């Protein structure tokens, strides 16, 4: 079943059944919607769901309860309150434990489908702030958990979380003999990893289209390097013929109309841009040095890229027409892989420090930088669409794996295990 049909299976049935006007928890807590450190969080109790026969706890715990609590904890909007053991959970018990909200969950089976009823109860007034019913096949239970977490965030902040977004990456797990790299996608928390290409060759540097329907990447499948666009479920694929060589580091503009990439003519690599339908390729830089790794600013007006014109690889920014080029990276002997935060205020990049690579973050306005310290080499950052996390690749375990971390370096989580996994690209918020 494809992701889109998962979503279709859930959404028509999800319906707001009740919304009280008494939003006590909202008025009591000053919520910083960015959830930055020091922000007060809403204290919420989430007891294990009530299960109707024949639903077994084991079939609900990993696919539903763990991802739900993981997502709610990640949001930083909510602090999860532990309920005292030995007492039957109830809003009153949760109130005694210091909670403001109580998420009451009930799961039953209707034919082959799970039905999840979620009620968010204000423990002060005892009234439900939110009550929704979700239904899906057993395989989509995790997506219900992620949808509930998103709905809670929308209710309190007006913005969905990242729990229905996806991360594209490259994995060697299908290798037999010469190393193969294929494009994979996974859910935001590393679950549901699946392959979407089958070139049985090298496929590199996947990048999402802003609408989340397509991924552009570079493949060696034809004995040259070419750009391809694949649908997110892998069902259809199209080659983009740029008319020039190399075709690496492709990246969609924020409006989805263009793709910036590295093109080569007579061995001279420059930043190029091509319309998303594969027409009208044009060169943006014109320098005899190496140019590489373009990235669009969040408003699409500027493009960052890597150039060796100063003698070492450094990050430069130009406007989207290729003019007003200026160097922005000065710390580190080898800088590459720049990516802009969704609010446009920060740029994360790979920075060579004493022979190792670290993820460095720059405040665009002040040009001050800091490093997310980690062992091994740490490369190819990509921002979460809420700007609260970065995914990147690290070989700290001895193998390349993908990790998620907060921009301040805390809350690091390893997302992949099988084979070697690199080049993560976090999707935009995918329209449902």
């Amino acid at each position, binding site marked *: 079943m494809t992701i889109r049909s998962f979503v279709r299976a859930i959404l028509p049935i999800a319906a707001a059944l009740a919304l009280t006007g008494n939003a006590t928890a909202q008025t009591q807590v000053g919520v910083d919607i960015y959830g930055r450190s020091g922000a007060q969080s809403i204290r919420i109790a989430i007891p294990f769901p009530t299960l109707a026969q024949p639903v077994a706890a084991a079939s609900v715990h990993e696919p539903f309860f763990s991802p739900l609590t993981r997502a709610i904890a990640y949001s930083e909007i909510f602090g999860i309150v532990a309920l005292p053991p030995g007492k039957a959970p109830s809003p009153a018990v949760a109130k005694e434990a210091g909670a403001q909200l109580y998420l009451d969950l009930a799961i039953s089976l209707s034919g082959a489908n799970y039905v999840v009823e979620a009620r968010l109860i204000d423990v002060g007034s005892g009234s439900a702030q939110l009550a929704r019913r979700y239904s899906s096949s057993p395989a989509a239970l995790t997506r219900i958990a992620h949808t509930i977490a998103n709905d809670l965030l929308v209710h309190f902040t007006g913005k969905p979380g990242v729990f229905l977004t996806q991360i594209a990456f490259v994995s060697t797990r299908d290798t037999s003999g010469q*190393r193969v*790299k294929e494009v994979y996608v996974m859910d935001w928390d590393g679950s549901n990893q699946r392959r979407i290409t089958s070139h049985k060759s*090298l496929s*590199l*540097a996947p990048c999402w289209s802003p609408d989340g329907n397509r991924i552009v990447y*570079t493949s*060696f499948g034809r*004995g*040259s*390097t070419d750009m391809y666009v694949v649908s997110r479920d892998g069902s259809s694929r199209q080659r983009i013929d740029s008319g020039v*060589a*190399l075709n*690496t*580091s492709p990246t969609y503009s924020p409006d989805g109309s263009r793709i910036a990439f*590295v093109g*080569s003519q*007579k*061995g*001279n*690599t420059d930043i190029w841009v091509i319309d998303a339908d594969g027409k009208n390729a044009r060169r943006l830089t014109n320098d005899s040095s*190496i*140019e*590489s*790794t373009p990235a669009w600013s969040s408003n699409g007006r500027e493009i960052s890229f*890597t150039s*060796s014109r100063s003698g*070492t*690889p450094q990050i430069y920014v130009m406007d989207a027409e290729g003019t007003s080029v200026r160097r922005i990276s000065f710390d580190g002997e*080898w800088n*590459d*892989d720049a990516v802009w935060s969704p609010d446009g205020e920060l740029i994360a990049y*790979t920075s060579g420090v004493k*022979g190792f*690579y670290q993820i460095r973050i720059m405040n665009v306005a002040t040009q001050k930088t800091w490093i997310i310290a980690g062992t091994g080499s740490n*490369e*190819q950052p990509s921002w979460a669409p809420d700007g609260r996390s970065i995914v990147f690749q690290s070989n700290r375990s001895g193998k390349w794996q993908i990790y998620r971390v907060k921009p301040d370096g805390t809350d690091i989580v390893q997302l992949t295990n099988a084979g070697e996994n*690199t*080049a993560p690209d976090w999707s935009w918020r995918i329209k449902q």
Partner: protein
Amino acid sequence: MRSTFRKSVVVAAVLTLALALGACRSSTKDVKAPEPPAPPPQETEPAAPATVEQPADFVQEEPASEALPDDAEELNRMAQEKGWIRDAFYEYDSSALTDQAREALQVSSTWLKANTQYGLIVEGHCDERGTEQYNLALGERRAYSAKEYLVSLGIDAARIKTQSFGEERPFDSGTTEAAYAKNRRAHLVLTR
């Protein structure tokens, strides 16, 4: 023709002996390095011109088409082992041709001129120390620098394709400077 034939036989005998001695020596070395895909650049010991040219001359006088294997993989292994085709090696983060790289490409061009039935893919490779995306661009430059030099030596540009592999296909997976040096190269692959 007869004298050439006799000369070939003599040279072949000498080469056979040399190969046999080489085999003996390399078999003891093999304990340390079980899988040397190609010789690393010998900075301290540049190949003497005499020994460089001898196999090249030998090839030119040989009725080559009969002796060369049909299988492309086998052909490339033989061409590299016998030194007819030599890879160009590079400095860190550089696509400039060193003197040794030029020498290697000169030797290769001699053979390519004598064996015009083959095409060539020049693969650009990098060591793993750089970043992946930048190294794909660097590999492209390396491949092209080698191609340009071969063309300047008289090889038809239409025979030569370039392909960057960045750091995706290292020849030596080690993390020593010697391993890195082997991985910074323009690798010449013969095609039919």
